[in-house]
């Protein structure tokens, strides 16, 4: 059997907002582009995010997830960019001339050769917390994203009365959605002493519908034979240890988990890309190139963004840089920070050979007030910004511009009390 073979400058893996933006940006730069999407339709996870609040940064408009995605899908199609849906790279290899991918799709097998690869595979939901819950493993334990898929795409209600564990945004949004559809949400339980998601979602998703948010509490046990029958709720102390005597049994038919998202790294790992233990995504430089030359990463595959607008912006950067890729020798410095102050910073490297200004994204480890964040490096005028309030659930961005200077040493991100 002979396998069809075609060559491109840029292959984008993933057809969500990051991948669409990357493909469009690479096409604008004149590169030949192929976009590969595993599912039947383009748009990624936004297809099921029917609530609004998307696009305020990028379009200065309040759009729903599908509306936001549609704008990029329309532009993508109007540019006649090549794409394959229901397609999957069964084999991804690095060769002398670039990359070789073996694609399996509805059209059969096909070999794709490409100078560069942009990883835009999005993220998946954490489920690991499940293993710490004692008791039975009946049906009725699923993630908020799965509930979202059932309700918004399939149109079926997966619960009549549920408990939501974790106060992530998707969990709160699903608490409202399930309530509107007639289910009863007994409560949202969060192990930390502050909500994980945005304050506006606590207000418009929980308070508007009188759904109780219980902080410093968790689910310790699940009971049920075939289906969840009840869960045991327990208060926790500052070390997240259950407080004896606070146990309470809540009858319900489902336990919905909203305990965070993790970048999807299957292909990145197959290509030997270095992963940052802080973001759980690829280590990249300011062009969003990973440790493997010619491989770029963007969107939620790179780090979990709280706004899709930043996902689009990173896709555009990765796509444009992939199109401009020349294979020049890199000379990288590190971005360093104290991990007691910061959860992570992206990019993790700066290529002094490529140079130029860049956006430094970071998250703080704990909520804090009246701080000054500074960025310094040899060859860079020190940049500082004052913040009245910083919180881990909100990503911050600082524009770093060396201007005429050349950064020629590690970049240091630090935090001080504002005076």
């Amino acid at each position, binding site marked *: 059997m002979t396998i069809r073979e075609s060559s491109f400058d840029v292959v984008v893996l993933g057809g969500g907002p990051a991948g669409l933006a990357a493909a469009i940006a690479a096409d604008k730069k004149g590169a030949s582009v192929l976009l590969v999407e595993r599912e039947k339709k383009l748009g990624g996870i936004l297809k099921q995010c*029917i609530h609004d609040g998307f696009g305020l940064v990028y379009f200065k408009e309040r759009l729903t997830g599908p*509306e936001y995605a549609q704008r990029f899908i329309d532009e993508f199609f109007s540019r006649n960019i090549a794409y394959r849906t229901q397609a999957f790279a069964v084999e991804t290899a690095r060769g002398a001339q670039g990359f070789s991918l073996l694609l399996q799709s509805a059209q059969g097998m096909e070999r794709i050769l490409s100078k560069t690869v942009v990883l835009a595979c999005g993220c998946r939901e954490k489920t690991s917390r499940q293993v710490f819950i004692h008791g039975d493993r009946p049906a009725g334990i699923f993630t908020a994203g799965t509930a979202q898929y059932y309700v918004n*795409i*399939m149109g079926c209600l997966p619960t009549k009365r549920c408990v939501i564990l974790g106060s992530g945004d998707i969990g709160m949004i699903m608490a409202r959605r399930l309530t*509107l559809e007639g289910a009863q949400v007994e409560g949202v339980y969060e192990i930390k002493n502050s909500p994980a998601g*945005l304050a506006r979602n606590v*207000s*418009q998703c929980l308070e*508007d519908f009188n759904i109780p948010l219980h902080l410093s509490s968790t689910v310790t046990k699940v009971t049920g034979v075939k289906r969840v029958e009840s869960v045991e709720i327990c208060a926790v102390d500052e070390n997240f240890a259950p407080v004896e005597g606070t146990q309470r049994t809540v009858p319900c038919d489902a336990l919905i988990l909203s305990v965070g998202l993790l970048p999807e790294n299957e292909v990145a790992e197959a290509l030997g890309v270095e992963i940052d233990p802080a973001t759980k995504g690829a280590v990249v430089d300011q062009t969003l190139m990973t440790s493997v030359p010619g491989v770029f990463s963007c969107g939620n595959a790179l780090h979990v963004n*709280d706004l899709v607008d930043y996902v689009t912006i990173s896709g555009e950067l990765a796509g444009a840089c992939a199109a401009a890729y020349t294979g020049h020798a890199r000379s990288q410095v590190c971005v360093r920070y104290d991990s007691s102050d910061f959860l992570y910073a992206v990019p993790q490297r700066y290529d002094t050979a490529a140079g130029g200004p860049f956006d430094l994204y970071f998250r703080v480890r704990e909520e804090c007030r009246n701080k000054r964040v500074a960025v310094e490096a040899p060859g860079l005028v020190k940049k500082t910004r004052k913040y009245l309030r910083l919180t881990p659930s909100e990503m911050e961005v600082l524009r770093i511009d060396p201007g005429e200077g050349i950064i020629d040493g590690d970049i240091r991100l630090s935090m001080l009390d504002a005076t």
Partner: protein
Amino acid sequence: MTCIVCPNGCRLTVTGTGENIQVEGALCKKGIDFAVNELTRPMRSLTSTVRTVFPDMPRLPVKTRGEIPKGNMLDAMKIIRRALVTERLKTGDVVIKDVFGTDIVATATM
């Protein structure tokens, strides 16, 4: 109260009553308008899905074009749940006319 206009989620402190409402903590003017409306006539936009006859897309995502009174959200849901889409619609098309002063429109293209 928390402003829900955008993801900034400004924490607003409201003092006074009637004509003399003072709002503190808003990063923009929208936050002040939000607080005043919230005290007088709270409004919300509503998003949901409508059943369709098409097996490849059993639900069509929809939204209220404008906002509706906060207290009418569950009533609006009853109307939305009764509706059935029988033709292929695209983003922006009206699905249900005049629901609490606004229209229910499609937010995706089928």
